[in-house]
């Protein structure tokens, strides 16, 4: 029989019992839909991890205070990671040529009768260099091929200097939107604003910024904020000494592990941490590099995809058995039809082709429905997962191919059973 006629015959076969056919494919539909949706979750998580940790340069080590929850508040473990810890690092640790200290917190910013609640950043004078190396934000409309300098981030006035950071001077730089909100079009440079109850002179306003990646432009607000010298922030904006985050710049990217060991030795000395009886150190800080983050992400992605594979296999096997079941019923119901076809000249391979094609059409139909359902499910999955779900384009052909293979595998046995019928017996079948 020609391929076209085989196809028409098979289509006729499955369309003759539409409800049963639809119910049969349900297993495949759900299996394929869950494959699409869960791969989208994995894909979304991967994209989110990439976006969140892209800021850490590959030559940077981020050092954070170890924290614990005590009386409902996060508190430092052991000794506090201080501004001074970072200040001495570059001169003592050979592989570190620069260390940046940052603190952040929330504050009320006031000028005249206007107040704004915002998150302030205490940084050193090189903060804009770090912003450039992070590559997350740029001045609005910046051409992608044009290099950035710290000056490009300043709209009016200037950023603070190393000397001002060392002295803890009361100066600050406002975000573009924050300046608009507070000064309503007046020139802020040289004016005095109040941060909580401390006065501070505005020396600059940032340029209008936007997220570099288009998909991040909705959920980031780079134009709201306040930059001030980290020393000033520590002395004036906290009741107790805050812990700082230190970003150590390593001179040689290939020696990150060695740099980590050197930093650990330096900090343990400053924090009086000695080796315990078990040979371990009870550190009160932890260090993160881009490689650490990527490694952890790859591991979790591998675990996740293993789970997904298991889920897909189970649901597709269930769907495949459903198809096998309905095809066996169909072969038995149509025994007489098979006998007639054999009597008028159908060979074994014609019968196999007809029933195998019916099974594959069933599973392919289920696969297409499942893909549609899976794609429609992604927004729901995203809403249950903090908005993190993104259709993986590879998952569509993959899921469809898997549904085809399921139909082939589970349709083979019923088709072979049909082809092995004895035409004499089949014609007598009631």
């Amino acid at each position, binding site marked *: 029989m020609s391929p076209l006629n085989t196809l028409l015959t098979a289509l006729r076969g499955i369309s003759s019992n539409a409800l049963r056919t639809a119910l049969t494919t349900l297993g495949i539909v759900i299996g394929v839909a869950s494959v699409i949706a869960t791969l989208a979750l994995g894909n979304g998580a991967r994209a989110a991890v990439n976006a969140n940790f892209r800021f850490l340069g590959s030559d940077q080590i981020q050092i954070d205070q170890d924290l614990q929850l005590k009386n409902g508040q996060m508190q430092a473990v052991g000794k506090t990671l201080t501004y001074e810890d970072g200040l001495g690092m570059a001169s003592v640790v050979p592989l570190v040529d620069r260390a940046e200290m940052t603190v952040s917190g929330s504050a009320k910013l006031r000028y005249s009768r206007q107040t704004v609640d915002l998150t302030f950043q205490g940084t050193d004078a090189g903060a804009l260099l770090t912003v450039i190396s992070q590559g997350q934000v740029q001045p609005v409309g910046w051409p992608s091929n044009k290099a950035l300098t710290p000056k490009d981030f300043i709209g009016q006035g200037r950023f603070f200097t190393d000397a001002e950071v060392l002295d803890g001077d009361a100066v600050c730089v406002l975000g573009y939107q924050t300046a608009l909100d507070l000064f309503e079009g007046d020139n802020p440079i040289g004016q005095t604003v109040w941060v909580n109850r401390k006065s501070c002179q505005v020396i600059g306003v940032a340029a209008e910024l936007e997220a570099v990646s288009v998909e991040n432009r909705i959920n980031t607000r780079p134009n709201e904020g306040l930059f001030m010298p980290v020393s000033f922030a520590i002395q004036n904006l906290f009741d107790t000494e805050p812990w700082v985050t230190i970003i150590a710049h390593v001179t040689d990217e290939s020696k990150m592990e060695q740099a980590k060991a050197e930093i650990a030795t330096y900090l343990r000395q400053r924090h009086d941490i000695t080796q315990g009886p078990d040979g371990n150190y009870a550190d009160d800080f932890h260090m993160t590099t881009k490689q650490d983050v990527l490694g952890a992400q790859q591991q979790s992605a591998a675990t996740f995809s293993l789970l997904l594979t298991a889920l897909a296999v189970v649901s597709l096997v269930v769907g495949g058995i459903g198809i096998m079941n309905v095809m066996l019923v169909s072969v038995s119901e149509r025994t007489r039809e098979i006998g*007639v076809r054999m009597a008028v000249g159908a*060979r074994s391979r014609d019968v196999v082709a007809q029933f195998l094609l019916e099974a594959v059409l069933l599973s392919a139909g289920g696969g297409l429905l499942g893909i549609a359902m899976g794609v429609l499910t992604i927004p729901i999955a995203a809403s249950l997962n903090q908005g993190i779900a993104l259709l993986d384009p590879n998952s569509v052909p993959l899921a469809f191919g898997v549904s085809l293979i399921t139909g082939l595998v589970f349709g083979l046995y019923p088709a072979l059973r049909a082809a092995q019928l004895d035409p004499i017996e089949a014609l007598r079948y009631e």
Partner: protein
Amino acid sequence: MKIIQTENLTRTYVVGNSTVNALRGVNLDVEVGEFVALMGPSGSGKSTMMHLLGCLDTPSAGRYLLEERDVSTLTKDQRAAVRNNRIGFVFQTFNLLPRLNALENVVLPLLYGRNGGDMNQRASEALERVGLTSRAQHRPNELSGGERQRVTIARALVTNPALILADEPTGNLDSKTGAEIMRLLVELCAEEHTILMVTHDAKVAAHAGRILQMQDGEIVNGRPASVAA
């Protein structure tokens, strides 16, 4: 030319520990254009004979030559090909596919052969020959018993076979309709078609040019029942 030649055609079945001799060495010759009726009581071997002559089964011993070609040792697929273009079947219970209309039922054997050209045209001509052109688009359940049997005959004719095998073709029809079907078969025979018909009914058998009586797996009239005899 001889359409059918059988030599010592034998078929035995093994049922449990015992063997049943359904055919005990049948010798039969049928010439082109003959209309042969095969009669006999139940269990006489008529059906077994029919299955062997229709290439639905293979003999345990002996030879069967269809159009002077030995078809008793063919493989399953080779037999399917012989059934497809050399043999047409007319069944007592019609055996039309219920979801296909008359024309599609008649086209069916052509689909399984190597047929180029306009298969629907050939099927239409076959339906015209049995007088059912106006019913081509009707499904079997919309047709009367006589019309269904005509569709079956058209399906048997459409590949222009060497041999038409009819198994109780009037068994499910009233006597008037049955007579019409017999008239059609006699006409086809006159057009050089060779027909071998199994029947219980002596009146039906009377339309045939030759009547063979079977008993206990042997033909008891006509030519000698075995080579040894």
